[in-house]
């Protein structure tokens, strides 16, 4: 008997088919990895497993019985639990309150001997004890009393896992669990997987990172464009084979980078003792100093939430610095607004492409000139020149291989990869002297990742200075000439890109300083 069995499972949104005739059998007590590119339909499939979406066709069986879930609660009651990529936790509550959410323990009021009834007041002491015992049972490192917003991402994930284990689930679904973890935290999580497997739990792991798949899973299922394209026992396959199934062609897993020495080059960008605070008056950037030379890529590594976002915001003019200075070729540009930064020759690829990089409801050509619309070629006497703008966007669309249905369509119709390419085209083509690039390939398909990486390297070879911030450590390591590591708003270490060691960077990301 299988733990979960999908038979011809299909999900359609109007004309768009997200999943088509999926047949998967998950063996009890095994770890099954489901891999595929972004947008291949993995998450839709899991949402159907967990009752968040209803299938348009086909059958789903849990422990041999056909089921139809109306909500995730039905799934939990059937013994299915899911740990989401974006945690569903309440930041202001404690660890134990989050784990027991929905199943609170209430205080008993005892009136002499036998007579007792439940009061509406929550028994926090008892709740804490229950959760601490659960934590100890599974040998997790966690404190039941901590407030969730103060604990690390890895710890938050453990809270999510415990939330499911407390509800007695046998099958655990993990959606991209390692996307936000340090290398060490990933290792710890993989150990937890093995521990859970030993205790008889069935695990489904959704990921696009092949290292974890090979290390921990028993079986690999590959999904592409909403269909199962392959299924292998992990022992009998290789990273290259899985990658080929995912993309449909041979993929170069490593970027081809020309090594060169930038030490003697001129300093382009110089940041000194930069500081800023968040809304609560806490220092989120603490004495950040670095230099970038011509033809150099400086990578900023770190676990998300350690000040990288704030650094990019301050450097791109979206947030004010409370102290320190920023210079571009000896010109002071500290606390300048984005328009001034752009006109002084800085290209900006922001962290969140839809919040800060694009206007979703405007046309592609409008987005391709956004931020550069004061350029004399595009705007005369305060009026935008339509024909010139269209010429410029046509050439950019061609040059950066942006796949669109129509030039005057909205950006919201584009896939993540093509939307990102619009920003890349706009910023890279403005002939900047220096580039700030943040999370350039988040949620982008492998083909576009290759393309964007090559463009970044091209600019480096044209002697531009580039600041690269990314939460994907492999991206930083593949592209950067030098890497600085941030932890709690400070730079805790610097390594050369050429002989970077992920182990060492991982330790620094976790706050263990280099020496």
């Amino acid at each position, binding site marked *: 008997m299988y733990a979960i069995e999908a038979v011809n499972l299909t999900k359609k949104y109007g004309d768009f088919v997200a999943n088509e005739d999926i047949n998967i059998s998950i063996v009890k007590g095994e770890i099954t990895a489901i891999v595929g590119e972004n947008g291949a339909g993995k998450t839709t499939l899991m949402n159907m497993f967990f009752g968040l979406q209803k299938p348009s066709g086909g059958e789903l069986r849990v422990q041999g019985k056909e089921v139809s879930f109306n909500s995730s609660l039905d799934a939990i009651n059937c013994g299915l639990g899911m740990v989401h990529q974006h945690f569903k936790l309440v930041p202001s509550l404690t660890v134990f309150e989050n784990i027991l*959410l929905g199943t609170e323990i*209430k205080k008993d009021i005892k009136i002499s001997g036998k007579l007792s009834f439940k009061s509406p007041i929550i028994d926090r002491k008892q709740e804490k004890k229950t959760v601490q015992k659960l934590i100890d049972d599974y040998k997790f490192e966690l404190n039941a009393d901590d407030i969730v917003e103060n604990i690390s991402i890895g710890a938050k994930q453990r809270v999510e896992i415990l939330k499911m284990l407390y509800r007695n689930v046998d099958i655990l679904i993990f959606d991209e669990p390692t996307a936000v973890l340090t290398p060490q935290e990933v290792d710890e999580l993989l150990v937890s997987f093995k521990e859970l497997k030993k205790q008889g739990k069935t695990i489904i792991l959704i990921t696009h990172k092949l290292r974890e798949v090979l290390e921990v899973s028993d079986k690999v299922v590959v999904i592409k464009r909403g269909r199962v394209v392959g299924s292998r026992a992990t022992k009998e396959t290789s990273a290259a084979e899985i990658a080929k199934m995912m993309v449909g062609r041979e993929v170069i897993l490593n970027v081809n980078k020309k090594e060169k020495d930038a030490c003697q080059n001129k300093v382009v960008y110089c940041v000194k003792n930069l500081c800023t605070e968040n809304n609560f008056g806490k220092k989120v950037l603490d004495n950040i100093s670095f230099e970038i030379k011509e033809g150099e890529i400086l990578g900023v590594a770190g676990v998300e939430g350690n000040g990288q976002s704030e650094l990019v915001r301050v450097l791109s003019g979206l947030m*004010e610095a409370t102290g320190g200075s920023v210079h571009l070729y000896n010109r002071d540009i500290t606390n300048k607004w984005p328009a001034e930064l752009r006109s002084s020759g800085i290209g900006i690829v922001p962290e969140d492409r839809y919040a800060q990089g694009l206007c979703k409801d405007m046309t592609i050509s409008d987005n391709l000139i956004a931020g550069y619309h004061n350029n004399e070629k595009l705007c005369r006497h305060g009026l935008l020149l339509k024909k010139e703008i269209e010429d410029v966007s046509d050439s950019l669309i061609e040059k950066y291989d942006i796949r669109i249905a129509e030039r005057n369509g909205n950006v919201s119709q584009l896939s993540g990869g093509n939307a990102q390419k619009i920003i890349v085209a706009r910023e890279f083509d403005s002939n900047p002297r220096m580039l700030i690039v943040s999370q350039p390939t988040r949620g982008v398909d492998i083909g576009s990742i290759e393309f964007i990486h090559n463009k970044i390297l091209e600019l480096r070879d044209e002697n531009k200075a580039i600041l690269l911030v990314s939460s994907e450590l492999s991206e930083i390591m593949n592209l950067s000439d030098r890497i600085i590591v941030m932890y709690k708003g400070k730079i805790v270490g610097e390594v050369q890109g050429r002989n970077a060691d992920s182990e060492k960077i991982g330790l620094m990301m976790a706050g263990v300083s280099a020496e």
Partner: protein
Amino acid sequence: MNLLSNILYDMIYHSAPLILAVLGGLFAHKANVLNIGLEGMMLMGAFSSTLFVMLTGNLWIGVLLSVLCTLILGLIFSFFGITMKSNFIITGFGINIFVLALSSFMLKYLQMANINVSSIVNVTNLKINIPFIKDIPIVGSLLSGHTLITYISFILILVVSIVMYKTKFGVYVRVVGENEEAAKSVGINSTAIKYAAVLIGAALCALAGANLAVERMALFTNNMTAGRGFIAIAAIYCGGAKPVKSSIYAVIFGLAKSLAINLALFAGPVSGLFEIVPYLMIVIVLFAVSAVESRRTKIRGFKLE
């Protein structure tokens, strides 16, 4: 001395309806439902309580019926705002205009300038004097001689604090407001929680209205809430939606109203000008709180999440 006593007494007197509206509005605010219909709900409480007292001839039946009427108004707001997912501002605004129009229309229809029920309700008898305390100077005028709903409003500050932070319902309200997805993922019915939050607000606003009209003056005049619902929203916002802190802001606005009335006695021909004191106060306090907030943030132009 006498003036000070009067100011303090009036401060409590004018704070009571504000505190009730603040405590009621808190739940919706915490559950991430923007209820600007507090003003309309309060006016509904004032209008319907007086009307029903006139029709039934009994004070407490009148108050009870007015709570029911306002709950229906709360249901209408919830249905449109929560179930049908319409815009909260427009829905709340609709509630406010609807009640104002309804009460004016009814007054016209009944051919009355206002509804006076002083023949049924004797206002002086409703004031509860606390023995011993009433004889202490200053404190006596502060604590004694108020009406039942006034006392209830101050006791509710404590009750609401306990409900909000110690019970399951309070936790759920906060969870729904903070991360609705988290609430849904463990099977909490977020829609029901939001409805409950709005309805608690409606019930307390009805009491606030009844306190304002029937209990204090035995009188309903057109648009008598005069923006108190909006003052309550301002107090919730300034106090960060914490029961005690927001109530303190409500008392501050009560003090402003009390000062305006008591000082106007000495102002002679320009006494009408003092009417603006509470509203001016609101603008100043809101400005000060926002200024402090925006000084703290270093983020330019765009809003985070």
